[in-house]
């Protein structure tokens, strides 16, 4: 290459250094830096007006309100509908943002002390609520629970909810996260496929293994799962452990207690069952590389019979679901006669976390908007629009529901009091998604034995327990 420039290297270096020297003083001109300034502390009474029967929380008329809604599988129209009602009642216009990037967009706003009021903190990129709560940046939502409900002033909001909504929304003793939706996790299948082939949804692990052999003979893969997101399999694994071994022993796992995994026989049985499924080749080939959409598509096209999933799947897989598919969800499987919880037990728990920022301009308005969303009208609107239940008990009674949703509602009814709630993934996502997820992906491809899974899971849980930089939570029994 021709070098025609007269600038020699040494000269260049000198000039570059000079530039650097010049640039450094320029930094002195910086008045603010990335770590920003602290937000002032307050008790959430900013913009509080007079209370009345129609306005129990005391929302100030015309005060500004900002809502940040996750716009994923559920969209954000349901929130806009509630905002429209809020605007009418309080003579304001709610500033609405629908986004998939709640965390990255709001992290600087929290650090700068000017967060929005109501946040639907969902999706892969969500804010760390554990940290926010520990730092006292979340509004205590107890006033909302104690406020009269929209439909029946004699009933408090707390009495219209599934009890687990209140338990799950607590950090230590403060109720500061409102889970609006109610998700049913479990084994999803096509009612039509089972009926056509004359198969019955298995009641126990043994039945499952027997049925899998038949399904495989029929040229269909018994199971598929989204290997790109192995935590989908945990929906079933964790709940199955709680069902067979009892909730107390699961709570020990949630609390990261020593030997919680290794001393629980249910863990051995459940992980052993999955090892067997893998060894017998009961997973759709290539599942370990599929996204949730790809796995769901394989399932709706009849390539696989069962998939571990949550009740949002009906909305998400709608484009590929045949009209007569008969989407349905079944309860957890029995391990044996020693099970601590009866047949019909199901993991069904609040989801879609809404938070109100204490440092926002109008925390009271944020709570009031939630109260509007918890009315029967908006709970039903949510069910219709996104095919999901809400945390409002019985809101969908008497409605015409889509197949998957009605199956989920039925399973919840049959589960009765035996609805399981799992905190581990919410509290320690790095442990469950990354670490245990890595183990699970190896377990399901047959590259790892159940005994090793359990040993390493315990090791990772212990590491998390010892790591002082991770905020710890405790769940009482």
């Amino acid at each position, binding site marked *: 290459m021709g070098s025609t420039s007269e600038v020699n290297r040494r000269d260049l270096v000198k000039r570059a250094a000079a530039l650097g020297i010049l640039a450094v003083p320029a930094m002195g*001109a910086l008045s603010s830096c990335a770590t*920003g300034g602290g937000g002032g502390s307050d008790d959430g009474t900013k913009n509080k007006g007079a209370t009345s029967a129609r306005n129990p929380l005391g929302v100030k008329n015309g005060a500004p309100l900002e809502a940040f809604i996750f716009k994923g599988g559920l969209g954000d129209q349901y929130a806009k509908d509630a905002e429209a009602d809020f605007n009418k009642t309080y003579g304001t216009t709610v500033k609405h943002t629908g986004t998939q990037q709640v965390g990255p967009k709001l992290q600087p706003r929290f650090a700068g002390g000017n967060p929005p009021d109501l946040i639907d903190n969902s999706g892969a990129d969500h804010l760390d609520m554990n940290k926010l709560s520990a*730092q006292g940046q979340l509004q205590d939502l107890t006033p909302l629970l104690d406020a009269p409900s929209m439909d029946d002033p004699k009933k408090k909001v707390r009495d219209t909810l599934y009890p687990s909504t209140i338990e799950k929304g607590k950090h230590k003793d403060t109720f500061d996260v409102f889970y609006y939706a109610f998700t049913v996790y479990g084994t999803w299948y096509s009612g039509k496929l089972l009926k056509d082939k004359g198969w019955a949804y298995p009641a126990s692990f043994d039945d499952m293994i027997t049925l899998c052999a038949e399904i495989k003979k029929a040229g269909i893969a018994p199971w598929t799962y989204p290997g790109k997101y192995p935590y989908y399999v945990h929906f079933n694994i964790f709940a199955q452990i709680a069902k067979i071994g009892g909730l107390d022993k699961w709570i020990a796992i949630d609390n990261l207690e020593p030997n919680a995994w290794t001393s629980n026989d249910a863990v051995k049985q459940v992980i052993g069952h999955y090892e067997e499924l893998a060894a017998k080749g009961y997973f759709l080939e290539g599942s370990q590389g599929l996204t949730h959409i790809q796995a769901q598509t394989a399932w709706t096209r009849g390539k696989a019979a069962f998939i571990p999933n949550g009740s949002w799947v009906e909305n998400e897989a709608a484009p590929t679901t045949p009209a007569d598919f008969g989407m349905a969800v079944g309860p957890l499987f029995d391990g044996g006669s020693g099970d601590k919880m009866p047949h019909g037990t199901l993991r069904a728990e609040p989801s879609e976390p809404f938070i109100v920022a204490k440092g926002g301009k109008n925390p009271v308005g944020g709570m009031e908007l939630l109260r509007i969303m918890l009315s029967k009208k908006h709970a039903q609107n949510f069910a219709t629009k996104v095919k999901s239940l809400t945390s409002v008990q019985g809101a969908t009674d008497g409605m015409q529901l889509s197949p998957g949703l009605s199956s989920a509602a039925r399973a919840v009814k049959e589960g009765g009091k035996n609805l399981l709630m799992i905190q581990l993934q919410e509290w320690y996502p790095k442990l469950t998604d990354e670490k245990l997820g890595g183990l699970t*992906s190896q377990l399901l491809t047959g590259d790892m034995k159940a005994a090793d899974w359990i040993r390493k899971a315990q090791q990772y849980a212990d590491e998390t327990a010892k790591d002082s930089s991770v905020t710890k939570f405790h769940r009482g029994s």
Partner: protein
Amino acid sequence: MRHGKYRFIVGFLALPLLLYGVFVISPFVQAFQISTTEWSGLRGTAKSVGLDNYAKLLHSGEFWNALRHNVVMLVLVPIATLTLGLFFAFMLNVGGRARRGAVITGVRGASFYKFVYFFPQVISITIISVIWFNIYNPDPHDGMLNSLLGAVGLHSLQSSWLGAGSIALACIMVVMVWANVGFYVVLFSAAMASIPREIYEASLLDGANRFHTFFRITLPLLWDTVQTGWVYMGIIAMDAFALVQIMSVNMGGPAGATDVVPLRLYQTAFRDSQFGYAAAMGVAMLVVTLLFAVLTMRFARRERIEF
């Protein structure tokens, strides 16, 4: 005219320098400062913890695992990319058969090939990742690669690609090479175009074949360009964030088989809310990248040939 030259230059450069200081240099310096705190990223205040984050980093198996993958990429990806780039550029510019009217030509259709090679450069890395993720789709009918292998009867080679821990990193490296080779083809083509034809003609008269002309003439005269390309490609390999984040299963999986430092940094900051610790990772990356650049410059230095 000489006196006042510097005042003149400074007057023109003051504003850009100010901007550069505020938006480039100051974040750099702040990263060092943040890395000595336990800042969560969610509050305006942070406790200083000295060098604890660095101590934690040195003892973190995850970090070393991620760094190992980066180093593997740092070694293999530039070698593969530059070798292919050089080979293609040589074939397109010098490697053709002698045709009438010109002794030194590229292969037939060289300009078409140039366009094809360069094409991935025009597409954003995100789109490339999504395209390749779908090529690697493990489904034997929907996955492009698997259905292709099936169509030609190579069923035994079908694999879950990104889902298989042993080859997932290799799959991602292939995409990296594919996406970057076009740039080097164009870069080396430009450099080759500046090599005087007489040199080639003389060597051909002396009976040199393509192999000789490449290793005795082209490569030595291109050495400067290769060296620059090497550093640049190494920096790209140190990153790999977008590719891994979009393509890998379970964010750097299966079981950490494709984890890279920038992804670890991102997860630490945005999932675990440990911005201080993440900043320490960023500083560590800076050190590794600088080390790589310095070593490359040091060991690849040769006598400059004037022509």
